[in-house]
Structure formats: structure tokens, C-alpha cells
């Protein structure tokens, strides 16, 4: 397969994947609609698994191919299914996610974070698999920062969970090029963890929604005593 495609074209597709991956991360910061955030996350997870598969082919690493398969199974199928099942449909109809900052300012901060990610990784130099980590490392770090930032500014439980998952995607996107021989068992462990906490948060959100009719957890600041 490597002979058929050639390393340079593999790298080209990888770079393209990286570009779209970064776009989806920026998209989660900018999207106002919850469903759009959700779809962006699924697309991003798919791109993560494509990236892992490409790297696996390039390095002849069965570990990475396994990582790609596990990512594809959990993040593009299991987690979206769980989220759709556990969280009430009404939540997905939210067209304006409540935010602490308005979208233009949060986009400008996102820009600063992305710039910072590039500056930091530039000083790291060549690590892991050089040609690939030049693409994946800054984009992965940027996605991690953007996810964490989105997690901070959103007041909606499901949007926060999606932001957390995006940050997690970023870690893996950078990770697969720094430690390409990352044992598939680590990914498998994560693949068990993440659906579990998605399930827990999803069920919790459902409970909150049925109790108080909203999932704006940012507004839940005081304890209510019965």
C-alpha cells in the first residue's frame, strides 16, 4: 500500500486531514447550534482515525491501525449513539448555546491560542516522526487548547462535554505522531473510559433536564434545599 501511494502523497493527505481537523476545532468554538457542534465532533473523530490509519500505513505499524479502528468504532459510532440516546432530543434543538463570551471575542482568543500552540511546538523542534509531527503536533496542541477554552466559556452541559471530547481528540492527534508505538492497549483503555464518562455525563444531563427543564449548568450556582 505504501508503495502504491508513495510516502509523499501519504504525507499530503495527512496534511490535508490536519487542515480540516484544525478547521473542525475552530468550528466547535464558533458554532452556536448544539447539533452543529455534535456533527463537527463526529467529523473530527473520523479525521483522527484517518490520520492514525495514514500514519499506520506509512510506518507499517499495526498498533496505529488498531488505534484507528478503535477510534472509528468508539468516537464516530459508540459515543455519538450514546449521546443521542441519553440526552433528551430537546437539547439538540438548542440554536443558541449560552456562552460567557460572545462569539467574536472567543474567536479572537481562539486565534491567540492557535498562534500560541504553533509558537510552543516550534520551539520543541523535531520529535517523534518528524515529517508527520510537523503537521500533527501543533494542530493537536491547538485543538487541545481550543477544546479546553470552549469547555470554559460554554454554559451548556452537552456542549461542555463535546468540548472535552474535542480536547481529547487533540491529545490523540498530537500523541500518535510523538509516540507512534503507543501500545494499542492504552487506546483501548481510553476507548473504554470515554464512553463511560460520556454515558455518566449524558445520564446526569438527562436527569438535570428532566428536573429543571434546562441543561445550562453554568447557571446552576446555588444549592437548593428541600
Amino acid at each position, binding site marked *: 500500500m505504501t508503495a502504491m501511494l508513495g510516502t509523499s502523497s501519504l504525507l499530503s493527505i495527512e496534511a490535508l486531514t490536519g487542515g480540516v481537523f484544525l478547521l473542525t476545532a475552530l468550528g466547535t468554538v464558533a458554532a452556536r447550534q448544539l447539533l452543529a457542534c455534535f456533527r463537527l465532533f463526529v467529523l473530527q473523530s473520523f479525521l483522527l482515525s484517518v490520520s492514525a490509519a495514514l500514519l499506520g500505513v506509512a510506518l507499517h505499524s499495526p498498533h496505529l491501525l488498531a488505534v484507528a479502528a478503535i477510534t472509528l468504532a468508539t468516537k464516530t459510532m459508540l459515543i455519538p449513539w450514546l449521546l443521542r440516546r441519553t440526552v433528551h432530543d430537546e437539547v439538540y434543538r438548542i440554536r443558541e448555546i449560552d456562552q460567557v463570551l460572545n462569539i467574536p471575542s472567543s*474567536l479572537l482568543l481562539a486565534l491567540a491560542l492557535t498562534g500560541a500552540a504553533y509558537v510552543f511546538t516550534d520551539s520543541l523542534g523535531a520529535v517523534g516522526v518528524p515529517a508527520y509531527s510537523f503537521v500533527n503536533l501543533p494542530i493537536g496542541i491547538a485543538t487541545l487548547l481550543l477544546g479546553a477554552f470552549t469547555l470554559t466559556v460554554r454554559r451548556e452541559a452537552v456542549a461542555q462535554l463535546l468540548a472535552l471530547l474535542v480536547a481529547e481528540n487533540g491529545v490523540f492527534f498530537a500523541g500518535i505522531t510523538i509516540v507512534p508505538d503507543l501500545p494499542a492497549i492504552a487506546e483501548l483503555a481510553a476507548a473504554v473510559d470515554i464512553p463511560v464518562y460520556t454515558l455518566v455525563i449524558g445520564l446526569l444531563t438527562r436527569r438535570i433536564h428532566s428536573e429543571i427543564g434546562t441543561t445550562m449548568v453554568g447557571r446552576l450556582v446555588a444549592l437548593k434545599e428541600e
Partner: protein
Amino acid sequence: MLPHIGYNLLQVAVVIGFAPLLEGILSRLKEIVQSKCGPSVFQPYRDLAKLLCKDEIVSRESSWLFRAAPYVAFTAPIFVTLLIPVLTGYPLFFAFMGDMLGAGFILALGGFFVALAAVDTANPYGPMGASRTRMVGFLTEPVFLIVFMTISLVAGSTIPYVVQKEWVISPAAFFAPWHVLLLLAFLLLILAEDGRLPVDSVSGHFELAMIEKSKSLEYSGRGAALMKWAGAMKLFVLMVVFLNVLVTPWGLAVSTAPVEVLLAVPYVLFKMLLFLLVLVAIESSLAKLRLFRISEFTGAAFVIAVVAMVSRLFAA
């Protein structure tokens, strides 16, 4: 030398001739998406012919600006056509007269005159549309500049022909992350600059909500025809820059053989047809943004363009 001038003129003829056709196809496609039959794709030609035959009525209170603006708006895209690769992959006679920034300035000059003319008539909707267009304009201009700066970082030039060569020659540059980001930023710019749906509704008839269209409400007869034609040509020219320089720089004529240059015409039109499908999908699936949400739209384009530049700056 002589064939180069000839091909340059042929490019102009293609832009003038096929711009209304593309507009017809676009509106037909949109109607089909809305489960309607829609007018013939040649309807814009009939409209233009009808308007050109009609008398023109000009307000007594208006100045020369009002009469001059349609001609300026009509010639601006023609001058831009001389600078950009419509049919050939090699630079033609006027190719080095100006770069992409120059082309942007020429289009902006046309827009400036149209805005002045809209204010000139003192029609209540004209100045409103003009000021809104200025608002969208100054929100998109920084994005244009950043996009052009990034392009010049990548290709070492902003002459459209040189940039086009850069993407054709090196596939690594073509698939680079910043290229994807640039494409999206430029697509958002086309939507904003041409008054397409998330920013402005082209087919809307509600004057209070108009941005682009209210500026030409006062025109009749030949003036209206020229304004309509100018709008179609502007979209055509923007699409040429987007498709032939940035997205699909292939398929242009590489030799001076007339057959090859003529064959490039259907090929370029085919590419545009595909782009129109994308445009129809965008326009049919998005709702118009509220006026003060436009800054979010252009802000997103700006952030994407700057991220493209940052990722290019730190590329190994």
C-alpha cells in the same frame, strides 16, 4: 505577442458572454431545490435584452455620478479579467499590470462608485444599502489582505498566474493545511462580497433587508442592464480567481494553440457548474444572518485566514 493580446480579449469576451448564463443556471438550480420549475437558464440574457431596449429614466436631482456608476461597475470586472487566468495557464499580455490586490482594488472601485450613486439619488433605501455594503466591505477587507499575504508567503508572489503555477507544480503545497484554511476563508469572502445567502439574500424583495440589491433600485433601462450584468460578471470573476487559481488550478491551456485555448472554455465552465452546485447547497441550507451577526461571519473568515498564515509561518 499578438496571440497573447487576442487571448486576453477572448477571456474578456468569455466573461462578458457567459456571466449571465451562470447566473441563469444558479437561479434555475435554486428553484429546482425549492421544488419549483424555475425560469430558463437563458432568462438573464432575455432580461438584459429587454432592459437594453427600454428607455432610461434618470432623476432630475441626481448628478453625473448616478449616470457614470453603471459604466464604472461594468468595466471594473473587465479590467480584472485582463489580470487573471481565465483560460490560459501562462501569463498573457496584461498579466503583470497588477496583482490580486490590484484586482481587488479595481473591484472595490466599482463598488465605491455604485455606493456613491446609491447615495446620490436620495432614494430612502439606496443610502441604507450603500452604508451596509460599506460595513460588510470594511469587515471583509482585512480578511482579503490576510489571504493575499498568506498567498504571497506561499507562492512568493500575488500575481494570479504565478500563484496558479505554484499550486499546480507542487502537490505538497496544494495539500498543505494552510491551503484548506485559505480556501474556506476565500469561500466565505466570496459569499460576503457578492451578497450571497448567509450575508444577504439575492432573491429577496424586501427593501428594508436588502444589502446589495437596494443600491441599484433607482436604475432603469440601460443603467439597470449594466448593473445587472456587472453583478453577474463580478461573481464570474471571483469564481475564476477561486477556481482557476486556488481550488482547481488544472485544465487551463498550456500552449498557444487556439484549439487548446478554446477547449479550456467548456472545461472552465464545467468547473464553475460544480462550484455552483456547492453554492446552491450553501444558499439553500443556510438562513440569512441578522445584520449585526455578519461581523461574526466575517470574524470567522478572519480567524481562519490568520490561522492559515500562522500555520504557514511556522511550517518547517
